[in-house]
């Protein structure tokens, strides 16, 4: 009897040693409408300690928001005959179109390099599905170029110290979403980190999409290209004609 009770309690005992995450996000859907100039995504939640244990001081949080993956061709320019021309290129099979990480303290202070690599914590630890047939140096060069472009566009970002933890129990992080954000299905992952290791993780899905008129236009361009093109021409003819008539009246 005593033994059975112990067995039943085993899963509880195992998970009981580490805290648990209860995450939430401010929006599970971000609509891009006519006046969209970016958004702020709020990721927050609670850290539950087993058996009412007191909150630990060394608990850290990292939050990662990732956009849909895309296949990219990266070209490199070189000076040939006095001109900068594309001379080499590499294919990357799956590159996250958006990547933002927010942490409570500098990444190298809270996780080991090994953990950072396994969980893709930090822009430098992203695995951009290496291109085939290229040597390591060249791979690294193209990846650095690609990451630099993404950083400049605001699509890759690290927000160190952007996660605040209150009394070791409640955490919150505000991540800016830039205006040029690609549409698609995003994931927001929250990692609970202690002693350099990830002890709990939780994930939420976020959809970023065009809404209303913007969605209609984008869909029409894809599904009704002929009609769309004719409407574009019609619109330009109409506006041109209106201006001509209006100016003749005005004179």
């Amino acid at each position, binding site marked *: 009897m005593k033994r059975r009770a112990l067995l039943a309690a085993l899963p509880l005992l195992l998970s009981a040693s580490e805290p648990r995450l209860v995450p939430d996000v401010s929006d599970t859907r971000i609509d891009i409408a006519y006046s969209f100039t970016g958004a702020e995504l709020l990721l927050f939640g609670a850290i539950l300690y087993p058996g009412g244990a007191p909150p630990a001081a060394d608990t850290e949080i990292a939050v990662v928001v990732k956009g849909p993956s895309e296949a990219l061709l990266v070209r490199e320019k070189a000076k040939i005959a006095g001109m900068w021309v594309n001379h080499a290129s590499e294919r990357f099979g799956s590159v996250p179109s958006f990547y933002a990480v927010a942490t409570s303290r500098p990444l190298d202070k809270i996780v080991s390099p090994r953990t950072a690599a396994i969980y893709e914590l930090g822009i430098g630890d992203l695995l951009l599905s290496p291109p085939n047939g290229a040597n390591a140096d060249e791979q690294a060069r193209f990846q650095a170029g690609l990451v630099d472009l993404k950083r400049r566009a605001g699509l890759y970002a690290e927000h160190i110290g952007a996660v605040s933890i209150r009394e070791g129990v409640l955490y919150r992080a505000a991540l800016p979403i830039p205006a040029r954000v690609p549409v698609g299905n995003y994931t927001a992952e929250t990692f609970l980190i202690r002693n350099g290791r990830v002890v709990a993780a939780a994930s939420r899905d976020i959809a970023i999409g065009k809404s209303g008129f913007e969605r209609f236009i984008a869909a029409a*361009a894809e599904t009704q290209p002929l009609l769309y093109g004719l409407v574009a021409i019609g*619109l330009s003819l109409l506006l041109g004609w209106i*201006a001509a008539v209006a100016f003749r009246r005005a004179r």
Partner: protein
Amino acid sequence: MTGLANPSNLASMHLYLPIAGLSVNILVIVLLGVGVGVLSGMFGVGGGFLITPMLIFYGIPPAVAVASSATQITGSSVSGLLAHSRRKGVDYRMGWVLVAGGAVGSLAGGGVFRLLQKSGQIDTVVGILYVALLGWIGLTMGRESLGALIAQRRGTAPAVPPKKSRRLISALPMRWRFYGSGLYISPIAPFLLGLVSGLLTVLMGVSGGFILVPVMIYLFGVSTRVVVGTSLFQGLFVTATTTLVHALTTHAVDLVLAALLLVGSVTGAQIGSNLVQKIRPEVARLILAVIVLLVAVRMALGLGWRPDAIYTVQAL
């Protein structure tokens, strides 16, 4: 609506472009359209050679910039064309021959474009084309208009040396009479010119005007009264075709971007076609020559300077 009444709010009003996938400042895009429209009405050049690089500089994806500026040029061409046709400044016969050539040229251009895009050399080829063409046109036009201005000041007739090219053109068989242009030449010459301009429209996102106008004036000897109107007439058809080709193949025409540009450019085209009446044609041509040369120099420097980004990304 209170936002519209306040000028500081208007200056910061942003609109999201559904195809380009980013927000732009409404005022910047509309003013860009006005500037290009004025050039279009004054000189019969679509202004694509200015607007496409500027849109790309603003951060609009190149394919969207090229496709949407074609749509915008159609509108400013209509606006300018109506103004010119009221003054009988269009040679429709010459115009149709140019349109026929342009149609063939833009179809051929579509094939060349895809080929160059695949090899990744489209930017370099377009850059070299820009520098060579704009440089040549700017120098020719600048020298001629400056010579005409100096001759006027001295009170002498401008010296027009007989050109080898004109003799070549008049040697072509099957001559037609073009009354508006005051020419008796073979339609093969304007057809070929239309073809080249159609090719360039697709490749460079510019209306054919900036090559049509100088070639018609300097090589054909078309009466300057009808040059701008006729060039606009041809540009109208070729850019409309280009819009359709882009809508069907690249899906890169952004209606919102085109509409914003159009609002500015159709107004600008009216202002421009009135403005050009008030200044002497030689002065107008000199101004155009200077603008064209400045763009050419900037483009040439751009080819040689170390670019801001060594790496570029293309979606697969």
